[in-house]
């Protein structure tokens, strides 16, 4: 059952997460900022409202599972785990990417408390998610498995092998979220290797597809409520977002994939101001920001 938390409170958490992403990147010198910012709202909605988890008992057998298949977005995932109570956020911000740290660019479930799967190589989350969903069902554990992939990641064929199995096995405990920020390292997905019509593809594979503005908290909330309630098979949420959203100079640009901020803390403070100023209209900005290639 979903936690009782308001959209306004969730939006405040998203602001906090975006600032944590910026600060963590600053401390680490650089990071996969673009896809972390685009996924931030959905991650907040999942961890603070929908996922039934116990941070005090990360291995709790009945918990909902989450796989950050786009593992380079550990930069958003690990801070959100910390905000949810699995880790100390200050320790995460200080140690990310440092030698000997538990928190690298890609999350390891052996090192990060609360992390359900080690990821980083794209196209691995969906097969593991399908296996988890099947394993939970076999053991009669009523829990959801949520897999977040990138959109460029959908170019990996293994996702579609898993999608085929999820529908064939009618895994109604599986939710696939595609963070459709429309950009990959080399440019817009539709220029590098087109994915559209993505909704029709996932539907043809047998998923119930919900397409939303994934930077609009109210829409994230509504989509997750529908996904949680759906019983006829696997669900796919195409979460249309903007890469780098919340960073005025980077949002919508393919170059936001991996960036460094300046050497001085002053260089990131204007980002905090922008994030604060747009707590309530980040979804609108996302919808209005065009995708920019080279």
């Amino acid at each position, binding site marked *: 059952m979903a936690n009782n938390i308001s959209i306004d409170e969730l939006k405040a958490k998203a602001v906090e997460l975006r600032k944590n992403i910026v600060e963590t990147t600053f401390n680490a010198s650089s990071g996969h900022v673009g896809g972390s910012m685009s996924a931030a709202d959905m991650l907040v909605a999942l961890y603070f409202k929908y996922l039934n988890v116990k941070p005090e008992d990360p291995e709790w057998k009945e918990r909902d599972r989450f796989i950050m298949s786009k593992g380079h977005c550990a930069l958003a995932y690990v801070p959100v785990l910390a905000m949810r109570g699995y880790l100390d956020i200050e320790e995460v911000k200080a140690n990310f990417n440092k030698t000997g740290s538990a928190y690298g660019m890609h999350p390891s479930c052996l090192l990060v408390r609360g992390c359900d799967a080690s990821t980083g190589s794209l196209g691995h989350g969906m097969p593991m998610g399908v296996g988890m969903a099947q394993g939970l069902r076999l053991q009669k554990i009523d829990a959801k498995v949520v897999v977040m992939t990138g959109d460029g990641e959908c170019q990996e064929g*293994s996702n579609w092998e898993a999608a085929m199995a999820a529908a*064939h096995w009618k895994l109604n405990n599986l939710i696939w979220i595609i963070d459709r920020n429309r950009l990959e390292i080399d440019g817009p997905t539709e220029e590098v290797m087109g994915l559209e019509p993505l909704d029709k593809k996932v539907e043809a594979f047998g998923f119930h597809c919900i397409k939303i503005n994934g930077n609009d908290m109210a829409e994230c909330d509504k989509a997750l409520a529908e996904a949680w309630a759906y019983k006829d098979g696997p669900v796919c949420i195409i979460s249309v977002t903007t890469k780098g959203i919340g960073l005025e100079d980077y949002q919508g640009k393919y170059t936001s994939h991996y960036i460094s901020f300046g050497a001085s803390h002053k260089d990131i403070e204007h980002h905090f101001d922008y994030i604060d100023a747009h707590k309530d209209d980040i979804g609108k900005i996302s919808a209005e920001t065009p995708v920019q290639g080279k």
Partner: protein
Amino acid sequence: MGTAWNAHDANKMSSGKAFGQALAEIAKDDPRIVAVTADLAKSTNTGIFGEQFPDRMFNVGIAEQNLFGVAAGLAKTGLIPFASTFAIFACLRGGEQIRTDCAYQKLPVKVIATHGGLSFGAAGTTHHCIEDFAIMRAIPNMTVCIPGDAYECACIIKQCVNVPGPFYLRVGRGMEPLIHESEEDCKDIDGNPIKIGKAMKLKDGNDVTIMAVGIPTRDALIAAEMLEEQGVSAQVINMHTLKPVDEEAIIEAAVKTRRIVTVEEHNIIGGLGDAVASVLAQSGKKCILSKIGIPDEYGPIGKPEDLYAMYKLSSQGIAETVQEIMGAEIEEEDWSDED
């Protein structure tokens, strides 16, 4: 062609069938055991388990990446998945999933790789697998076993449930003859039952050591008997566990016989021969080593028994190779490390 056996007159019991039956047997008392396959339930004999436990058998279709990803996911919920396909598709088509999803995360996924080596001879190079020992040995956390016959396979399947982390088992197509008469008969010459991680001496001897894995182990034994008649006393050691390799057994053999021939249905690069060579070189013990295997080339189309003979994996070929190194000289001063 000088081989000791013929695929068509041999098997009372195949390794694949032994796997399927052993799995079904242990699954009765262990609800954690599940099976996953990729449209090869019949060929890998996973279907024997599936017939008895249809709810615990998952067929992902022809999708090996998904096979090992799904197996990892199942393992994450507390289950012990046996994921089976042909060796070549396991270690190369699904290799990254085995490495990153199963091994890196230390999950108890048991990879059952059938039709290994040249055992699917006439299927040709696309279906041969002479690279898996090298690949699987190099994956951290992985245990690698290659049973010599169906009964060894059954014993190892039953033991591997308790091996922590990922596990790779390679068998052939399942037409090879038997070494042992039963599971109880899978013992070394001192009566110790087969045990994962422990090399198994099948015959004693003083002049030379033949170390073998998998199907050619039986030919190594026959070769040793042939060599006795030729005045050469050969001991035969079954190296069914390739990783972790039994270093003690290798050093003991080097000190005792100073001559070792390794026998494996694998590229001579990266398999048993190289594992033995590495242990020997680091030990400082003087020893002549000859590696029998596939000499870094793709195997041709043919009956497996013909291909084994062609690559000296037959009893005749093994005996000839032993005789060649019996003639090699070991300088006196190099014996000083014996103490």
